[in-house]
Every structure is written in structure tokens, then in C-alpha cells.
């Protein structure tokens, strides 16, 4: 799933929306729209889940929606995770090894850059920022060949570090953009009073700005993590050792050569998506406040 579509979907689920709606017709429309979107979003997931917990023969004959007969089994999950040829468990771990640093590194660096863009003045600041925005529009496919050769020259091709660096640098611009806007919304007085009280710029940033911006930081981190976890393209181009492959690379290999085992594939898909979903569920509270922004909360 692309980054933008995800943002839209999730923001639809903002709680407190009903508080803004007074007329009953509006309320009805909003509810209908929300339910339609909700069902559209959840239905494929239900299908996937039903397919994953039953023997494939049953699904193939009766369809995933039939509950009679229904044989519950976790065999698909077991087979997907511990497939002797393409172990999803290994891919799972590889994905974590890539995604965690690829989230932490760009969030920290981008937060520093974003604060500078939000609060300091320095020469060509605005030009730099605009250039960064323009370059964000460059598609991955356009950059992949130079990236490939660069990593090759650095002997980082087919390494975790190489992919981590690529993901980090790909994340820095948009997180900078996101957090700059977030920081600009913070009341300046917090920083000013800290200055009067003797805090240095570094102390103001780490002890005031960063903790106060936690919802924004977490929002950015959740998006970046999901983005890296879901990435297929960079991994496909830059990692080719089967032992280092990430989960999205492992997934298509479960398809088999002559016939597609949908049960196995469904179980694999659910395993793959479980992590970003879990991250979202756990950090849901911060994530939503992050998007609502501090300005509205006051």
C-alpha cells in the first residue's frame, strides 16, 4: 500500500469526528461513508484470513465465504514460517533488522533538520527546503541505477547496511517536511521561557521540543516503519542473497512453481502484514494525536 493512501484511510478513522458534526443528516452521511470504507477495507482481509486458516482444497471447492464445511488449521502458517526452501521466519527477522534502524536513523536525523528549518535562520534555508520538496517527487525507479552502482562501489550491495542507508536517506526528506510543520505549530513561548531559564539550543531541543512533539515523532516513525516494512522494490534490487531477503521478497516465492497454494500465500501475507498493523495498534493513540496536531488539542 502506498504511503498517501494509507494516510487518507487512517485519518478517516479519527475519533472525535462526530463531535464536530451537529446535523443528523451529516451524521448519517458520515456514518454511511465510514461504514462503506470500513467494510471495503476489512472484507479482503477477512477473505485472506479465512483462506489462511483452512486447507486449500476446502477453499478452492466451496469458496472462502462458506462456513460449511469449515476445518480450522494452522498448517498454512507453520508451512509458511518454516518452509525449508524459503523460510518466512528468516525473512521476518531480516525485515526487522532492516526496518528498525531504517526508522530510528531517519527520524532522529530528520527531527534535527526539521527543527533547524522550523526555528533557525541560516543562508539559503528556504531554497534548501524547496529543493528538498522538489526532489521528493523523484520516483524510486529513476534513482535505482545510480544507487545500485553507488552501493556496489561502496561494497554495500547485498548487505543489510546498504539497504538501511538507502531507506534512511529515502525517509529523511519527507520526515523533515512532516516534522518541520509539526514543530512550527508548537507554541514558541515554551522554547523562549526555556531560553530565559538558561537552556541551550541543544537542551531546548532534547528536553522540551522532542518530548512535547512525541505524538508527531511517533506518527512519522509509524509511517516510515510501515513504508520500509512494505517496501519490495529497493529490497528486490539491492538484496539477492536468499539468506538476507526481507519478508516481502520471500512472499512471492511461496507461490510455488507449478500451482499456486493460496492457503500458504494467505498465511504468509497475514504474517507479513501483522507487524505494521501491530505497530499501528500499539501506537494508535499517539499516532492520532500526532495527526490532529498540537494546535487543535489546545
Amino acid at each position, binding site marked *: 500500500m502506498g504511503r498517501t493512501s494509507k494516510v487518507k484511510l487512517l485519518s478517516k478513522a479519527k475519533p472525535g469526528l462526530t463531535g464536530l458534526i451537529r446535523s443528523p443528516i451529516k451524521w448519517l452521511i458520515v456514518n454511511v461513508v465510514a461504514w462503506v470504507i470500513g467494510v471495503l477495507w476489512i472484507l479482503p482481509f477477512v477473505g485472506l484470513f479465512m483462506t489462511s486458516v483452512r486447507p486449500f482444497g476446502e477453499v478452492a471447492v466451496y469458496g472462502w465465504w462458506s462456513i460449511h464445511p469449515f476445518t480450522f488449521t494452522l498448517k498454512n502458517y507453520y508451512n509458511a514460517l518454516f518452509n525449508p526452501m524459503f523460510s518466512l521466519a528468516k525473512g521476518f527477522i531480516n525485515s526487522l533488522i532492516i526496518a528498525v534502524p531504517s526508522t530510528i536513523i531517519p527520524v532522529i536525523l530528520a527531527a534535527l533538520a526539521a527543527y533547524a528549518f522550523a526555528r533557525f535562520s541560516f543562508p539559503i534555508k528556504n531554497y534548501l527546503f524547496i529543493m528538498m520538496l522538489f526532489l521528493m517527487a523523484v520516483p524510486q525507479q529513476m534513482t535505482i541505477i545510480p544507487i545500485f552502482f553507488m552501493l556496489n562501489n561502496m561494497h554495500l550491495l547485498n548487505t543489510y547496511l546498504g539497504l538501511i542507508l538507502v531507506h534512511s536517506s529515502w525517509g529523511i526528506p519527507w520526515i523533515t517536511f512532516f516534522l518541520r510543520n509539526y514543530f512550527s505549530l508548537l507554541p514558541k513561548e515554551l522554547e*523562549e521561557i526555556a531560553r530565559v531559564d*538558561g537552556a541551550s539550543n541543544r537542551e531546548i531541543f532534547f528536553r522540551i521540543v522532542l518530548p512535547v512533539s512525541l505524538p508527531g515523532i511517533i506518527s512519522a516513525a509509524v509511517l516510515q516503519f510501515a513504508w520500509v516494512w512494505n517496501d519490495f522494490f529497493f529490497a528486490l534490487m539491492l538484496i539477492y542473497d536468499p539468506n538476507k531477503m526481507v519478508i516481502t521478497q520471500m512472499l512471492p516465492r511461496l507461490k510455488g512453481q507449478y500451482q499456486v497454494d493460496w492457503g500458504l500465500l494467505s498465511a504468509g501475507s497475514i504474517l507479513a502484514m501483522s507487524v505494521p498493523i501491530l505497530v499501528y495498534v500499539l501506537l494508535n493513540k499517539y499516532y492520532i494525536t500526532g495527526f490532529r496536531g498540537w494546535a487543535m488539542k489546545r
Partner: protein
Amino acid sequence: MPEAAGIKVERLSRVFPPNVIALRSVNLEIKPGEFFVILGPSGSGKTTLLRIIAGLEVPTEGRVVIGGKVVVDAEEGIYVEPKDRDIGMVFQNWALYPHMTAYDNIAFPLRIKKLPKEEIDRRVRSVAEALGISELLDRKPTHMSGGQQQRVAVARALVKQPKVLLLDEPFSNLDARIRVSAREFVKELQRKLGITTILVTHDQADAFAVGDRVAVLRNGVIQQVGTPDELYDEPVNVFVANFIGDPPMNIVKVVSNHEVIKSLGLTDLVKGNEYVYVGIRPDEAVASSNSVDTHLSGEVVLIEHAGSRRYARVRTDVGLTLKVLADEGLVEGGRAYVRIKKMHLFSEGGSRITTLKL
């Protein structure tokens, strides 16, 4: 307690490019231990002035001296960081750190100074005690009322034991009832500590409640500096006269040979002016149905109640409509005779010619 410091502001100007002049050659001398108020409508430059004193902004011209030390001088290129100015500050929205408890908020300036833990604890607790917020120390700002947040903000400003306390509209976010007690509290505290304090406000009631002296600022220019009584009794110009006092002064523009000038025998005083402004405070004139010893007569247009007082709007026979205190027995539409106790006369330029007691 450190000894109180005086503050001198000399020829201070601030221009925001391209051409907004926030302050024009402001001069002030604030005595050690004084509670000084800068009063002005929004956009008068009062907050800019305070921020320059705090060091959060720099002047285009002029200098500021705190306790004998030049903290900023535009001509000499001197600038002392806010933290080295020995000041404590409270903002309008109090700017409490939302992620910290009251204790951590108050301790923050001391932790930045890297004082020993026991020392911090002792000082936080003693200032909290003095401000009556000891039982709030574990709470976060979102779990406090406006008045409590304000006390925490004041505690944070005072915990460093600064020589100067700067308050930027500290009462504006409080509702009317708490406001009164907050003023008393701040005033009392300031008296007790004897700390030089500058308060910025747009509200004359705030200014008069706490200020030893008040400076009235308008469009970046100081209009008048004086005690509340001086400002009330002898406003230097029409602006101050109009801005100070509640209900506001009746100010009427009349030609110099107007009936009212002649009948009160003021012709000599207004010589050289085509027009003058006559100013009469509603509380310094009384309308009654008795004509003995009165100056003007007219018809009662309206009677208003303001708390325990009643005011009558009287359309006088000489053509002025005045709001004045209403005596008992006055009715709307009836005759009224106005006795003026005190009257101000302003030139056509707006500056005060004289104040007459009648």
C-alpha cells in the same frame, strides 16, 4: 533574596522591517523593588518592549541597563543572553512544559544550572510553599486550573531568585473572578519579596490593581508615566484620558467659543485653539433634579445600572451629551441638572491644557 535591581531603558526603538515601528525612542527608569506596569492597547509595542528587556528580541536603537549592567546596546553592539540577565519571566499562556509535572517545571531552571539534587529539592519545595502550591507538585499542567497554572509559572520564574520579574499579560487567561484574587496574590508576593517587577497588560484594571507606577504606551510612544492616581487625575492627553478610567471619560470636541466654554468662563484658557476637547469623568459629575449649585441642565435620555451605581445619559441644553452619576429621583425623559466636580480641558492637538475643580 538578592537585592533588587533598577532598570533603565534609554532611547529604545524597534523597527520591524520593512516599516513597522513598534517602539519609538522609549525612555523609562524603573526603581529597585518597584512594581512597574506597562499599559497599552494591542499593537502599542508593550510586549516588544518587555521582550527586549528580557533579551528575546533586540532593539534597533537604544539600550537597556539592568542593575547597573548594560544588557543590550544597539550602538555599542552589546547583547547579553536572557539567561545572564538575572530575570524570571511569565508568559500570557504561562508556557508550562506540558510533559512535566509542576515539580519538574519549577525545577527545570535549576536543573539546567546543574545544581545539586538536594539543593534543587529544597528550593522547589520552599518556593512552592511560599506560593501555596505544595499539594500540586505531582500534577501535570493539564490537570490544573488556570489560577494554579499561573502560580506554577510564577514559581518557575522565581525559583532562580532573579533580580527582576517580567510578567507578560499574566492575568488575561484567567476568568474574572480568579483574576481579582490572582492580582492580589501577585501584588502581595511582590511586596513580600521586594523584587523589581515589570508587568505588561492591556487591561487598566490589572494595571491599577498592582502597579506602583504605570507607563501608558501607544503606537510605540510613551504617553505618560505616573502613579495610578496621577494618570487618573491628570491625564496628559486625550488618549490617556480616554484609555484610563471605567466607565470611560466623556470627551467632547467643541469649538473654542462654545456655550459651555463661555458659561464656565474658560475663554482665556483655550485661546489659540480653534477646537478643544472637554473631558468629564462620569464619576466626577452628578446629575440631579435639584438645580442648586449646578453647571449644566438638560434632559435625561437613559439611566443605566452598573453594579451599585447608576449613571444617567444627559443631553444638555448646550448640546453636549454626557454620561454622569445619577442622583436618586431622576427619571428617563425628565429634567436634570449636572454638577461638575472636575473637568479636563485638552487642546486641539490633544494635550492637556488644564484640569479644573469646580
